[in-house]
């Protein structure tokens, strides 16, 4: 119960502190269209750390 209360306070604090950068994201996506980002590292890591089913 107490744990949940602390977690709720963390959730509220982080949610309120999270900046809104969606416009910047959209702008960056447009700029970088055509750029190939290699996501294989992320894939490998997910597999390596055992999160993959």
């Amino acid at each position, binding site marked *: 119960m107490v744990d949940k209360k602390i977690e709720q306070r963390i959730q509220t604090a982080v949610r309120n502190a999270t900046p809104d950068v969606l416009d910047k994201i959209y702008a960056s996506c447009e700029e*970088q269209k055509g750029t190939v980002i290699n996501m294989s590292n992320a894939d490998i890591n*997910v597999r390596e750390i055992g999160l993959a089913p």
Partner: protein
Amino acid sequence: MIAFGINTAKSDTLAEVLDRYIYLIADGDKSSLGILYEETRSAVYGFTLSIVKNPIDAEDILQDVYVHIYLGAKSYKSRGKPMAWILTITRNLALMKIRDQNRATPLSPEDMSYIRQPAVTEEDRMVLRAMLNGLNDEERQIVVLHSLTGLKHREIAALLSIPLSTVLSKYNRSIKKLRKILKEEEANGR
């Protein structure tokens, strides 16, 4: 906490909803990117902040994570763990930032004042301060992941490559520490 409520059936699991958005993003659907962002940004920002401990860097990384998701969605293969995929990208980018700077930039009072979103209250600042300054790196990441991402302890253990028993003991210790710090701060009227 992540909340899903847009165009989802009651029977949809959280992972299924996220999966669907990622596949739509892969098809070039920017509105799905916006929805995914809205639904997950607190978790991504919280986890980033827990690693880099600096709101300025965390904001940059928050942006980079969703650009990577947009550009990398086509190569995404669902393994039923989309949040783990997003958090792995987040962790990789945060660690890369630290590596580039050759250190984790320490949090200063100025950095704390940079958290200037209008919604942030003094209570929020106190909680963030306690979390960032009162816990060590691993403790902070465990508490944030458990509080904000919906990952279970065993999934956190896998993500951070540490034993489950360590996650459980550090989580309990961290909650106790935070409770003590916040109690003291409240008693001091901060």
